[in-house]
């Protein structure tokens, strides 16, 4: 019984812990004027402050997989840019335009995300000429 409890606890920790360390949460950690593009499968989308995190698994072209942790803007900003907590679902294919981390790790900051149907999720809030 104790073993089962430990197993359940271990599973819970594994499921609820971030898949990749959230190493950065600042523009200064990234080469913001350099934009690279990846296409891969969503592993998870963390709708958290101060910044959201999109985890994407990409084929490395050699039979292996590479996981990117892509930092997005805050939920409040993204809501106004048309995103939502559930706009990106595990298993869907996305293309991410992003700037890589200065330290060379597989982390990046998102410029925009394009869904398989062509929908573009911008990182800029959209307002009309009345501010709404």
């Amino acid at each position, binding site marked *: 019984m104790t073993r089962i409890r430990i197993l359940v606890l271990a599973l819970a920790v594994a499921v609820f*812990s*971030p898949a990749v*360390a*959230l*190493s*950065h*949460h*600042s*523009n*200064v*950690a*990234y080469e*913001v*004027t350099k*934009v690279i*593009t990846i296409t891969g499968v969503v592993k998870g989308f963390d709708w*958290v*402050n*101060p*910044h959201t995190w999109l985890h994407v698994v990409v084929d490395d072209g050699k039979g292996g997989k590479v996981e990117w942790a892509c930092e997005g803007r*805050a*939920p*409040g*900003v993204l*809501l*106004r*840019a*048309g*995103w*939502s907590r559930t*706009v990106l679902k595990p298993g869907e294919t996305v293309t991410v*335009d*992003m*700037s890589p*981390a*200065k*330290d060379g790790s597989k982390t*990046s*900051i*998102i*410029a*925009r995300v394009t869904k398989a*149907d*062509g*929908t*573009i*999720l*911008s*990182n*800029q*809030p*959209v*307002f*009309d*000429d*009345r*501010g*709404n």
Partner: protein
Amino acid sequence: MRTLIASRCAAGACLLIAAASIDSAAAQSAASASPPDFSGVYYPYTPGRGGGGGRQATAPAAAQRGAAPAGAQRGGAPPPRPTQSAPLSDGSQGRSPEAPKLTPEYLAKWEVMRKSRIAGSYEYDNNARCLPPGMPAMMGMAYGMEIMQAKDRITFFSELNDALRRVYLDGRKPTAKQLDDPTYAGYSTGHWEGDTLVVETVALHPDSFIEGFTPHSDAMTVSERIRFTAPGILEDRITVRDPKALTEPWQTVRTYRKALPPNDELREFACAEGLSRELVSGKH
């Protein structure tokens, strides 16, 4: 009395008396007029440009209001691929000509911070460390602000880092105890001059920034004149004085536009949400 005046004056003279009474009433009304009501949610606005956050709108306005994914762009000619993901804010471009003019001592401090930021560190990045943006930087209000106005105080709330500042309008002045207890928002008192709110802020935390990552001393004070320049357009003219850190006072103007539904609600920021996950995972 009225009858007496009416009976004694000719028609033309009575008209003059009536006109004088109206002028007097108008002057009295202006003197006791209520101050404008600033209450509401605002986003930064660059006059002559379309969007919030001082940035150009990049998609049709209607897209913002529709069902999810509202604001997402779909169909039509694809927009150009972005060439930048975020503002370059690590100081690698040097100081802007519009930036506050620092004394040699504080310019040296800025250079240390610049090197740190270019290296990718957030040692001097208060925003990344979930610290309040502080005055006067917080009045940039990049993620929107909510103003709550009462007769005796006006409160400014910033969605970025859920930061708050109160401006007391009841004539109180900071005590020696308050002056000895600097905070990120500082201690603000204000009064109305006609339709303009005039604010003085003191007791500011020396670890906050004037703008960007421009440092200041414990002697910094901030003066503001806030008014509507057009319906729904609010302007804050800011003057920063700091005899230790600045070679001359620094002035800037922030402009905001009042939001209408459905964009008149700010979201909770809860910056510690992400930091606490890192504490639990043991990784930074």
